[in-house]
């Protein structure tokens, strides 16, 4: 290795700083893993509860690398046509008609040229001149068949189109896959990827996130909010509030010019719509519970 340990460590802290500037507060371990991912050119599988900021990793990474972000949202029934490529049938037919009208010979080669190829995220990601960040979101929602196909693309970084031939990646994208665990992923895919598990942030980290994202917030309010959210997560809720909920709530409270959570309990109860998203949870957090939490938060 040409890099000395010193520069290696510097790379990690640089990346961490860049991510922070892209409004993402990353642990050192995450930055280190991301750096490793770019070096080994392996995909990174990120797991964790909903709302811990899995998708944000990819967004922040693309910002800090200053490269495009290509996103493939998976869903049940996602197929090659909407993930890789599709021929532009209408355009092809139109072109044939025009050629016919002008009495020009139509050649098959012309019809199946790149001009008529609609690039979908996967194909687009491997045909860019510079490595983009490819985000494959909620891979667990796609079917097993698609997962198997994806595995092939991710190991060879080439896609074969019968009419055109094989397209090899001009640059290898930084691939981030996220999963919520609705379905067990195949071992083959898991082994192909590096793995990172994102947990809910601790108090300090979440506070840094809130202050980074909402610079105008006053110090007392922000630590009260984070303290409350942290205790909400310890309650027996059906849907634990994620970081998105924390930020929404904080933004709402700023809008309403709330300076202190203990000032107006009625109003605060109303703003809880930002945090508690099911009826059971609403019923669980009564005014008394909230007041206790706020008291604890100081």
């Amino acid at each position: 290795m040409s890099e000395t340990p010193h520069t290696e460590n510097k790379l990690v802290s640089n990346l961490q700083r860049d991510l922070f500037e892209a409004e993402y507060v990353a642990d050192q371990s995450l930055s280190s893993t991301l750096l490793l991912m770019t070096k080994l050119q392996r995909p990174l599988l990120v797991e964790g509860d909903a709302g811990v900021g899995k998708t944000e990793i990819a967004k922040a990474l693309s910002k800090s690398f200053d490269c495009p972000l290509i996103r493939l949202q998976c869903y049940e029934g996602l197929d090659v046509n909407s993930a890789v490529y599709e021929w532009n049938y209408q355009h092809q037919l139109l072109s044939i008609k025009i050629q016919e009208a002008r009495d020009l010979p139509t050649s098959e080669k012309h019809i199946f040229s790149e001009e008529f190829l609609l690039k979908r995220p996967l194909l687009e990601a491997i045909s860019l001149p510079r490595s983009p960040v490819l985000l494959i979101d909620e891979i667990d929602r796609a079917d097993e068949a698609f997962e198997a196909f994806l595995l092939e693309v991710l190991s060879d970084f080439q896609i074969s189109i019968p009419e055109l031939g094989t397209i090899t990646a001009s640059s290898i994208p930084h691939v981030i896959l996220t999963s919520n665990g609705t379905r067990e992923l195949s071992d083959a895919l898991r082994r192909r990827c590096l793995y990172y598990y994102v947990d809910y942030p601790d108090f300090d980290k979440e506070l840094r996130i809130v202050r980074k994202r909402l610079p105008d917030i006053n110090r007392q309010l922000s630590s009260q909010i984070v303290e409350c959210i942290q205790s909400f997560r310890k309650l027996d809720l059906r849907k634990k509030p994620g970081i998105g909920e924390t930020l929404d709530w904080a933004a709402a409270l700023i809008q309403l010019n709330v300076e202190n959570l203990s000032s107006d309990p009625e109003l605060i109860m109303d703003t809880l719509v930002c945090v508690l998203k099911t009826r059971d949870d609403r019923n669980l957090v009564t005014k008394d519970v909230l007041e206790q939490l706020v008291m604890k938060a100081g």
Partner: protein
Amino acid sequence: MHLVNHKDTGHEELGNTLVSRILEFVRFVRENDFQIGVREELDALTVAKHCNITDQKRLHWGLRSLLCSNSDEWKRFDNLFKIYWLQPVKRTSHLLGSIPGGKLPFDTDPENSVDNQEIKEINSTQQDEQGDEPVGQGGTRSGASQHESQLKTDFRFLTDSQQMQRMEEMVERLARRMRRRLLRRYRNLQRGQRIDLRRTIRNSLSHGGIPLELVFKRRLRRLPKLVLLLDVSRSMSFYSYLFLRFARGIVGAFKDADAFIFHTHLVQVTDALHERNINIVTKRLAVLSAGWAGGTRIGECLQSFNQHYAKRILNSQSIVMIFSDGLDTGTPELFSEQLALIKRRAKKIVWLNPLLGRDGYEPTAQCMQAALPMLDLFASAHNVESLLALEPQLAKL
């Protein structure tokens, strides 16, 4: 090293001792049930090279991302890393061969935070190494046989709570994977995507006969709809909790599956099982079944199933799976009448009786006698192996 010869791998600069230490660590992790292949041994060296080996934190993070592949492994990894790398004196001296053939003093002062089980495994590795056998083979073999015996253990002999927890997780994962396997069977039968010519031409009418909109033939998806009826009476108490975990796996993997528990009453538990947190599931189930006492009345329970749920839930694709030992205090007439009703509505009935796995058991209980002619499959479900055997049977039905 028997698997990877480090002279060929281009990792000379790491140094022999270090290479063997890392490879040994990978193997140690593998022996703790991580899914790791030979490829990861090579990758681990690359990671070590990139991560600047002298920086312990970064080596830790790098290897963690490489070797873990699910959240369970993620949580266990830190401990393993600590055991292996952070007891430097003992381990290093062992590698240099300075301990004269004796046992390592590992178990004398285990760290509080450290799992006893894992320590045991590290000890066994070390003993292997001191014998004549090649290390990896010995390790793999012992792992496999342990695994095998786990598969064959009758659930009722599980006494240790840790073992029980492992088994529960295994059973639930098994159920989730069942969907994948079943789906593959169906997929292979109907592979291929074809253009539906008839509908394409019909659609082309609006474009003056030019087939602008292509219509594809849809693949038919015919996964069976599973309905699980679990007996939770006292005679089933050794099994019912594991079956519940199995049911939870099934309900999680098959979107339209339904699960019920019965004893003296019948209750639908599909929603309760959908809850993610297993502790909440247990609590809810306890609430649902509170105050039940007395003998099992399978007949009445099936009747209430037929009255309240069958019409809505059962169709010609349904496979009804009953987990019960068939020990019943009700009348066999009512029971067989109700089972016949289910039989008429559903595609198949499967009865899983854990007693069937015991030597010398004959299904002589009145209730079982009445049921036998109506069953499409009568199998035991007393250990993991028998649950595994279930899946090809289901595919055949």
